[in-house]
């Protein structure tokens, strides 16, 4: 009796395995054919010279509205879903092409789902992503559609730095729908009460911290909650040593245990030891704005998106919020600020490639690029779009960056390869909670970085 059971079980399992083998293996074939199609498609759309605004609905399929999917992970807070829907409505009006945004609640599942979908016929037409290294891994697998012609067409409307960020080996991909600087937000009331003004150099900055601390106010917010925010201060203190050092570190040309890198960490450590940071157990998005409003914390370093969707949404009055750019700890490092570029990319396997490119053309133009920015009150990327809708505090930051020739550096999340970043943020968390283990942390970071760079020269 027993033998029969064993035989039957094995047969059933064998059938199951046979089933699974063909299904498991076959996705790579679709990508090579798709890549061939992409270059052809990109060339044909370069032909029509008319700007997107002049294209009437009649030019697209008779009366039928083409629907494009736009996948994003910004469905919670900040919630960009309504803004994307606005963009979609505008393109429907002007081009007969509707964008249907699909929000994902968490970034990890969003990333895996998009990556799993890209090689298949269910690839999203458009999707939000992150620049530099995070884009590169998709480009290396031929999963993105080129937009080189479009960037050529709009090249007078964008800064060179931005164009370069979207270009890899001479080819450009996707487009930029918003960008965010990372200034230091401060509580104007608290500053006024203590007679503090925006610090222009490191010494003034330290003085501000000291004054705040001696008046019972925690100078800056910092957290290990939610995993990713731990790199916020990291990038500040490394670029504050030397912006070139920061770039080299991100690109693997310098080790984490390099004395100059260590010096940056030690500045961070000294500020932690002096109690200039909040307890890292606070939540950057619910506790921090609360503490900011109550005058318990004086400054928060965050992207310019923090203004609307976190501070103002939490009820902080707009006239209480000021911003300045944090000075570098070394004078020789000059003036630096972190920029976060937000691309929307087009899949190579998109079923509606033409429509996607048409829509991209419009959204790259001055009018199109403004839609999202004006709703989110954020910076548009197109230099010719208007900035009237920006709150004063944001206008000030943008003009300071331009007028005083700040070095613009890419955010760590994108500037360094993803596998390194994902593990590094956990190490930074460890550092924040146990700053005395600095040497071990640096050597662990080296191990993580070496693992990647040795396999990916």
């Amino acid at each position, binding site marked *: 009796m027993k033998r029969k059971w064993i035989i039957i079980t094995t047969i059933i399992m064998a059938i199951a395995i046979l089933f699974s083998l063909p299904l498991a293996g076959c996705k790579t074939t679709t990508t090579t054919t798709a890549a061939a199609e992409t270059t052809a498609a990109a060339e044909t759309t370069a032909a029509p010279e008319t700007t997107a605004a002049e294209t009437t609905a009649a030019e697209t399929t008779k009366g039928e509205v083409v629907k494009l999917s736009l996948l994003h992970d910004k469905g*919670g807070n900040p919630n960009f879903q309504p803004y994307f829907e606005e963009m979609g409505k505008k393109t429907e009006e002007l081009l007969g092409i509707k964008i249907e945004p699909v929000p994902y609640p*968490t970034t990890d599942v969003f990333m895996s789902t998009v990556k799993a979908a890209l090689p298949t016929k269910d690839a999203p037409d458009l999707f939000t992503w992150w620049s530099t290294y995070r884009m590169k891994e998709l480009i290396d697998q031929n999963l993105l559609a080129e937009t080189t012609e479009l960037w050529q067409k709009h090249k007078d409307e964008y800064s060179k730095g931005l164009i370069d960020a979207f270009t890899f080996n001479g080819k450009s991909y996707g487009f930029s729908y918003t960008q965010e600087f990372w200034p230091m937000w401060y509580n104007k009331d608290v500053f006024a009460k203590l007679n503090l003004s925006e610090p222009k150099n490191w010494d003034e900055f330290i003085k501000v911290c000291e004054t705040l601390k001696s008046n019972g106010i925690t100078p800056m917010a910092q957290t290990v909650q*939610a995993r990713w925010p731990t790199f916020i201060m990291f990038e500040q203190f490394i670029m504050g040593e030397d912006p070139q050092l920061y770039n080299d570190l991100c690109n693997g040309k310098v080790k984490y245990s390099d004395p100059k890198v260590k010096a940056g960490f030690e500045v961070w450590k000294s500020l932690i030891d002096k109690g200039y940071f909040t307890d890292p157990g606070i939540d950057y998005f619910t506790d921090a704005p609360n503490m900011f409003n109550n005058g318990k914390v004086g400054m928060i370093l965050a992207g310019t998106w923090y203004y609307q969707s976190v501070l103002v949404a939490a009820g902080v009055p707009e006239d209480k919020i000021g911003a300045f750019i944090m000075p570098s700890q070394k004078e020789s490092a000059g003036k630096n600020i972190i920029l976060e570029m937000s691309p929307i990319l087009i899949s190579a396997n998109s079923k509606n490639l033409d429509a996607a490119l048409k829509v991209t053309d419009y959204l790259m133009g001055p009018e199109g690029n403004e839609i999202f920015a004006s709703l989110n009150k954020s910076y548009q990327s197109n230099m010719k779009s208007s900035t009237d809708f920006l709150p004063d505090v944001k206008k000030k930051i943008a003009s300071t960056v331009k007028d005083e020739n700040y070095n613009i550096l890419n955010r760590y999340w994108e500037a360094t390869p993803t596998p390194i970043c994902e593990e590094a943020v956990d190490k930074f968390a460890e550092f924040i909670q146990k700053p005395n283990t600095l040497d071990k942390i640096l050597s662990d970071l080296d191990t993580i970085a070496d693992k990647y760079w040795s396999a990916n020269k």
Partner: protein
Amino acid sequence: MGIIKKILTYIILILLALAWLLPVFAIIQAALKTPEQFNNSSFFEFPNKVAIVENFKMAIQRWKLHEFFLNSLIYAVTGGIITIIAASMAGFSLVRLKPRFNFILFLIIYSGTLFPFQMYLIPLYKIFNQVGLYDTKIGMILVYSALCIPFSLFVYRGFYVTIPKEIEDAAMIDGCNSFQLYTKIFLPQSLAPTAVVALFQMTWIWNDLLFGMVLTRTGNARPVMVSLASMSGVGGGIIPYIMTGVIFTSLPTIILFILLRKYFISGMVLSMAGE
């Protein structure tokens, strides 16, 4: 029981009950306040006005909770029905009709409860893509049924084992075929395990997050917990809205529990007594 022991028991129970209710109190309080008041007042202040309706409207407007609510309702009900039918039929067959390889078949199906669900995610995603079930209501219903059947089979089988053989023999003497045996004898008695299965599995389907996140894309097929999770996304959240969402999306399962409670408990008692 001694009086002192009785009082002590009551005191302990009441303390525990209070501790258990504390979170409920917290969410109701948060849901009643407006976001402005929530951020600017301490926990102990009572809400100025009952803002729950506005919060609710915001939650629906911004996150379209009602669409997803409907989807989950369809999944829970349809998935539940399919599970009940498939599992009770299979349980009946395993116990009464006793096909060969009885035990192996049971184990194969039951093994579905032993593996962590995440391991099914990526393979299922690929399979669904290939057969076109991705982001469809049908796909979700099938997946949910498949996930619920193992435990339900376990329950039905355990229950059917307790039905006395005499009843079956009597029915056979009367000339029943298997289908009549199933529908006229086994099913009517199955109220108890069905209540258990319905309660546990429909609640499980309603509360699912992972499969909904990975196997659907649009509002067409997305279940409600995914939208609840997205209310506090990458950058934190506005607590009064979130708590309103929590209340709204938790009500169905709580109501289900209240409705089925009587059948559930008395049903299990009956099945135990039948031993």
